[in-house]
């Protein structure tokens, strides 16, 4: 099978040339969130909290079979139906059969990157089911027929003017309406969808194995409303998203919130421990679908397994100076930024994902931000190494490194070469890669310039 690698470079170059406004919007959003994260880390002992979270998540991974069984039992004991899905297709099939068996025609959704990963919306729509995203950013993206550009802020790339035009066309708001007026229009429209919905589909930020509790964090209230009004709630959850104890959420969720947006806690947290039962409101059925989709393979790869400690806070995206220029679209799949670049070869396979590991200067800003201390730049390097071993490299890179190493082993020639290169590179540079690529947008220093 011939698998095309993700071509980040071409997509990024096109975006930079054609959509400078997207670059501006992404830079503004991510810089602001990065500032918020710093503030959020500043009023706790963030080093100690990150050590704690790193250890907790690694403990879970090292005992994942145990905690999954425990969680499965606890959820079932709470009256929550538990399903297991090997891959994207099996997950979509499980949701679809629930829909068919229960006569579901209208689905509302909370923002879930797993749902993007498994391409759930197209699968539901193909079966004639109406799907409405209810997170405001995700709703915007759905109206525009786009994909989220950031795992926390799907519409971070969207300049206000575009949202205004979109809402004017689709919801009839006046041209140039204020954000508050746009939000009011969306509220009114989506409220109807909530009240008419048969099923609410969410992800989960975590599941507490001891009490069988689904934790969901959000700011708008759409998840709380959807999990109240729909008669069926389905949570699609990666198998790695467990915490041992309910009380662990007491530190993990504040840390997640601080890392993502600098908030002390997301504005709304739902802790769902069952269907409504005898209570006055809420869904009659709650389902959890535990999704593997490549995760158990990544778990079986000890050098890369810590990738699964991720709590999807988006802090590494906000911190990444590469991501900040382009946003998530050029990464061409659900996850972007540093975590997307190390998940891609892990979940999509080396052949498809290796190129994303090149989309980094290895500056380490992501390592410094990650609340669970995933060694992101080390993992980027690991995938570069595996790609090189598999013969996957930028054109000419392997021979260039070999030639360079040969030269470096011979000091005399090496020094001569540097002298020649330094003196003449500015003149022959335009003709030979990689200097010619350097000269795209940059000059070479003139060696005889005395400064």
């Amino acid at each position: 099978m011939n698998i095309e690698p993700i071509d980040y470079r071409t997509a990024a170059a096109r975006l930079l040339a054609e959509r400078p406004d997207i670059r501006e919007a992404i830079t503004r959003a991510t810089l602001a969130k990065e500032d918020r994260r710093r503030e959020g880390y500043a009023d706790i002992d963030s080093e100690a909290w990150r050590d704690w979270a790193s250890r907790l998540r690694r403990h879970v991974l090292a005992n994942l079979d145990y905690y999954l069984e425990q969680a499965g039992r606890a959820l079932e004991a709470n009256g929550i139906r538990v399903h297991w899905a090997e891959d994207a297709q099996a997950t979509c099939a499980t949701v679809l059969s629930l829909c068919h068996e229960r006569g579901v025609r209208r689905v509302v959704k909370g923002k879930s990157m797993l749902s993007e990963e498994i391409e759930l919306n197209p699968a539901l729509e193909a079966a004639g089911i109406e799907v409405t995203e209810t997170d405001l950013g995700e709703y915007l993206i759905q109206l525009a027929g786009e994909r989220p550009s950031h795992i926390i802020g799907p519409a971070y790339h969207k300049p206000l003017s575009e949202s205004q035009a979109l809402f004017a066309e689709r919801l009839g708001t006046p041209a140039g309406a204020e954000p508050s007026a746009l939000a009011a229009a969306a509220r009114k429209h989506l409220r109807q969808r909530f009240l008419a919905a048969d099923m609410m589909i969410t992800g989960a930020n975590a599941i507490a194995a001891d009490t069988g509790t689904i934790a969901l964090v959000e700011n708008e209230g759409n998840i709380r409303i959807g999990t109240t009004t729909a008669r069926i709630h389905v949570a699609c959850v990666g198998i790695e998203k467990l915490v041992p104890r309910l009380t662990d959420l007491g530190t993990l969720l504040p840390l997640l919130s601080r890392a993502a947006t600098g908030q002390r806690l997301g504005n709304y947290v739902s802790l769902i421990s069952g269907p409504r039962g005898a209570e006055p409101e809420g869904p009659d059925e709650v389902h959890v679908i535990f999704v593997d989709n490549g995760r158990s393979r990544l778990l079986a790869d000890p050098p890369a397994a810590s990738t699964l400690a991720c709590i999807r806070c988006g802090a590494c995206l906000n911190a990444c100076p590469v991501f900040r220029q382009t946003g998530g679209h050029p990464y061409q799949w659900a996850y972007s930024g540093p975590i997307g670049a190390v998940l891609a070869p892990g979940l999509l396979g080396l052949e498809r994902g290796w190129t994303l590991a090149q989309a980094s200067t290895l500056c380490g800003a992501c390592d410094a931000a990650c609340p669970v201390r995933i060694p992101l730049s080390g993992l980027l390097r690991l995938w570069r190494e595996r790609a090189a071993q598999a013969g996957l490299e930028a054109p000419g890179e392997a021979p260039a490194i070999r030639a360079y190493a040969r030269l470096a082993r011979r000091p005399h020639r090496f020094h001569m070469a540097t002298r020649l290169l330094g003196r003449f590179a500015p003149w022959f540079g335009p003709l030979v890669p990689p200097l010619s690529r350097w000269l795209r947008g940059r000059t070479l220093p003139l060696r005889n310039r005395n400064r």
Partner: protein
Amino acid sequence: MHSYSTRAPDIRHRYAYNPSMRICLVPGCLAETFYPQAIRDSRILLEASGAEVFVPPQVTCCGQPAWSNGHPAVGRELATALLDASAAGDYIVLPSGSCAAMLRVFTPPLLETDSPRRQISAKVHELIEFLDTIVHYRPPTNSLAGRRIVVHHGCHARRELAAVGTVEHLLEAAGATVLDWKLAAECCGFGGSFAVNLPEVSVAMADRKLDALPQCDCVVTPDPGCLMQLAGRAERRGLGLTIRHAASLLREAEQMRQNEH
């Protein structure tokens, strides 16, 4: 062979002359290729600290380009060869934060646990950090008075070597004003092969940094890679900025002392 000899006048009386301290100055490929003057400037500053400085002809590359691009075996080979070639120094000093981080922080995990090269690795320092914190070099008071300067630290110097503050400290000791830079901590977009594999994004990153610069007389950095990236982009855009290696500006300050004598 390069010796980067300085023919500097004897200024050692200003500092405790310590001929028993031998400093191995390792140029690093980029400075050797494009900024040999920065190496000469580094040598002058190190000699001003009173030590004996030597540049072993056998030193070439620290191995970082190979290591960070998925060839750790080659990286380890070059790094160990360099460490072996520099072992005679009491200190091993590089006018490049990135190479210093490679040798001091990234190389030991590539070595056997009992490798004697671990001890050599522990002697590695980035030039300015070495001047500021190890030999307590101070430039002449007021030698840079009135100059408004912006400092860029390479990311490895910033994170792995915790070098932030060293350049600033010496510049301020020389009377310069070090200006705040909103995006000081941000990567310049060099990243070795990244700069040529993804030139469009790399240039966009440099632009972000340059566009956020305050009004200043000069930008300095102790990292030749960042220097090449920021200066190369600024020149192509015709920004008329002066961007220099930190050693070069400090050498200029040191010159004032030498002129006095």
